[in-house]
């Protein structure tokens, strides 16, 4: 077993033992927000239709699965892979399509729409696996499904590397 594999499994087990409300692993996912070119309004509508804001993070640490923005993430945290919660690591590019979640920021109590852009173009990072499924739905509602590899929108960069969590709007008006 490679060191990465061992790390992955150790991370998965840590997530498993830490919280019962969080399923383990999964990966990939995301929908149509991504690029700033896409209008946010439909995303907001979709997100609010998908469920009530949920997922109050307890920790302000972007390398922790408990980070508040990660309430519906599914994949390796880019924060642990050379990027950050809002940027892809060097050598990868953000997926043009994503899916969204709605997470509450404990700092201001507001619910934010979070776009989970996959970072694409290298093999899976394998560090800081995190899967939380608040508001997640099956692939028949793809824009809120975290099971899909959203690198599909990248030109020949289908390889999934890690996941970011960009704030793209306020869910409450």
């Amino acid at each position, binding site marked *: 077993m490679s060191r990465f594999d061992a790390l992955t499994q150790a991370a*998965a087990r840590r997530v498993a033992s830490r919280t019962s409300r969080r399923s383990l692993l999964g990966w990939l996912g995301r929908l149509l927000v991504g690029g700033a070119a896409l209008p946010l309004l439909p995303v907001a509508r979709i997100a609010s239709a998908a469920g009530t804001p949920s997922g109050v993070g307890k920790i302000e640490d972007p390398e922790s699965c408990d980070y508040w923005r990660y309430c519906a993430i599914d994949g390796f945290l880019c924060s642990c892979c050379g990027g950050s919660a809002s940027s892809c690591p060097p050598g990868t590019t953000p997926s043009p399509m994503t899916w969204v979640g709605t997470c509450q920021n404990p700092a201001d109590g507001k619910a934010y729409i979070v776009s989970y852009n996959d970072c694409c173009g290298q093999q899976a990072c394998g560090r800081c696996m995190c899967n939380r*499924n608040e508001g997640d739905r*099956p692939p028949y509602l793809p824009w809120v499904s975290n099971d899909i590899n959203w690198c599909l929108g990248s030109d020949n960069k289908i390889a999934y590397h890690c996941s970011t969590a960009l704030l793209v709007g306020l869910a409450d008006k």
Partner: protein
Amino acid sequence: MASRIAVSVLSLAFLAPVAPHAMAADFVAEAAKTAPLPDGPHRVWLHDLATVNYSKATLFDGDTGKLLAEVDTGYQGQELELAAKTPRFFSAETYLSRGFRGTRTDVVTIFDARTLLPTGEIEIPAKRLLGMPTSAYASLLDDERFLLAYNFSPASTVSVVDLERAVFVGEIEIAGCALIYPLGPRRFASLCGDGSLLEVTLDEDGREKARKAHAKVFDPGVDPLMEKAVRAGSQWLFVSFAGDVYPVEAAGAELAFGAKWPLASADERAAKWLPGGLQPFALHAASGRLYTVMHQGGPGSHKDPGRVVWVYDLAAKKRVQKLSLAELATSIAVSQDAAPLLYSAFLGAPALVVYDARAGSRLRAIENAAVWPALLQPIAAVAK
């Protein structure tokens, strides 16, 4: 390598004078060969997502715990499409020409079920859905002539492959819907985001002949259906996030939607007992038993692992057993013989665990079975 061979030859030369009789009279050099595939009633494929890179399926013997063989299933592979009519199986696969970059090619690979060797492939549009696998990403229709693969680009379509002619036939557009649930030799269903179920009928060439949208089968805003359904004969059983079973009967010309029934009692539901996992449902067809992985959760826990399996008599729609698992499970499967085994795997741990499906007793754990154990597919013994 060459130097090692040279050393070996030298060693033999030195040994020969020491034990001349043993070397000369009894020694038979081995010829390189491939082991035959062992048969048995309790063989099971375990799909390894391998940290969502290139995946494989590994075949284990549940009785002995032995690893029997492996096949590669491409980048972020899915389950195998097992056939009964011919000794073949199929796999809808994705490859990138430079490993993790380059041109994407999607194919349906044809395997010989006796040798496990790939014997051919049929190229399909390079847009099949990649992601956490479920059995509904690709499916064989019932007479095993057509194989369907679900595409997401993000347009929703279905690729149709004619296995008899070994050709890609074309795509069927299923906008707003997703996934493939076979309803017969020329018919399939897809689940739709508005809570309807789309029924598509194919003609003899594999092209769309008719379609029908069945409205309001479920309410995705209130209680979505999991896409992880099980098939019991002519019936599909979909289970909602809250734990209601929605039967869809395909025996007649018209689909029939049975009344939903709950997995948990009112008290259990109040205590937040819910189904969850990656492959949380399994069927033992002969006894009409449905096995479900259960946990205590809440909103967003629909992929959580469980440590108990509740067993239902499908005819009576009643729970008949509660099994306790020794390890957490995200996937279960049951062999279809008269002495069934229950297989259990957890994405977060590398073991495949084997239980007596009737008694619930833990028989063995197969360690290091997979890096990321995903779907389980038992296969029957080969008919003599």
